[in-house]
């Protein structure tokens, strides 16, 4: 919350990961301090993984952690590096 009581609006964003053979997938990014436990993704009937979370307005870095391995989102709108220098995906939220 800002000192003026204004809070940046949140928008629901859905992430889909097509790792059909994976045992566990989680969403990691700047928004959860790259914590693998913060946002586990849910397996869908077609064996892909889905998660919808609320994100603040702006650009966010993220990746899929597929069985412990960092994966880019092939459908992402951008690519950049995280603070560790790993290539990660970019999502704009407006």
């Amino acid at each position, binding site marked *: 919350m800002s000192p003026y009581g*204004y809070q*940046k*609006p949140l928008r629901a964003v859905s992430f889909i990961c097509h790792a059909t053979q994976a045992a566990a997938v989680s969403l990691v990014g700047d928004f959860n301090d790259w914590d693998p436990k913060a946002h586990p993704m849910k397996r869908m009937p077609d064996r892909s993984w889905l998660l919808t979370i609320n994100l603040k*307005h*702006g*650009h966010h*870095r993220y990746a899929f952690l597929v069985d412990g391995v960092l994966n880019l989102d092939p459908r992402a*709108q*951008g*690519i*950049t*590096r995280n603070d560790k220098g790993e*290539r990660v995906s*970019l999502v*704009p939220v*407006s």
Partner: protein
Amino acid sequence: MKKTAKTARGTKTKQAASGLIHPIIIYPFKQPNDYSDLEALYALVARLASEPESYARPITIMDRKTFYTMEGNRAFLEFRDNTVARHSETLDAWCVDTCQMWYEGLGAAFERGADNDVYWLIPGDFNYGSTAGQEVLGGLHDLPEIILELDQDVCVGEIATGHNNSKHLIDTYGTFALLYTWFPAEAQEIRQFTERPRSEFFALRHGFLREALMQRWYPYEQTVVMLLQAVFSKKRISRFLVGNISDLPEGREPLAPALQQVERTERVLKSVWRERNQFRGDWVELYRQLEARSEQVRRAAFTILQNHLT
């Protein structure tokens, strides 16, 4: 400096972090008869000009040859005076090519900028009035914002094209093949981020622009050289998809200019390579070997482009 959300389509507000964004518009060298694309572009420029807390006064760079070719044309003069000059500062310059227009425009903006500022290049010769163009126009603002928000040095805007698009063919069989010949490690790094190393859509941070301007000896293919410099000095690179024109009818480029673009890339890469390696004792022999390989690559590109573009 902080700012809350507002805003008209095509501009995104949010905090300007700690720097101003400097938009630099490269006015088309050849004035189109139909002004609809430029009108769409300058509608965005007008919005940027109306947000001085986030954006510096936009700069439009116009080649004097464009002006003198059109000086008797009333529609052009009216557009120049009532739209271009109203929403931006017009910088008139004699330029030998588009790259010199970039250099003039970015240099002028740099002189007015400060340490945390970001410079945003907007090419004018794009079909912004079309549906695909509107999509591109609506996503361009992301480039400088990514730099500010994520503390990047350069952000390249990419437009998705079909595999038979001439730009795609030139980049795949010309630009990247030559880059892998002269700078294999750097080419690999660049390709991890973008398939369009000659994109005219980009934004860059003040400190990196200073380096790019000071080291700018090469007359062509500015984006390729800039990306190489970014990799050499381990700058933070991002890529952002600003639009998709793969579904549009193919805008085929004639063979001659396509070949010229490949040849120019080769000349630039040779110059950069010599500059970086001329102090090695064995540089002449190495250069001869690379030049022989480079010629093979260029000839192969020639054949492929000839097959696709004629």
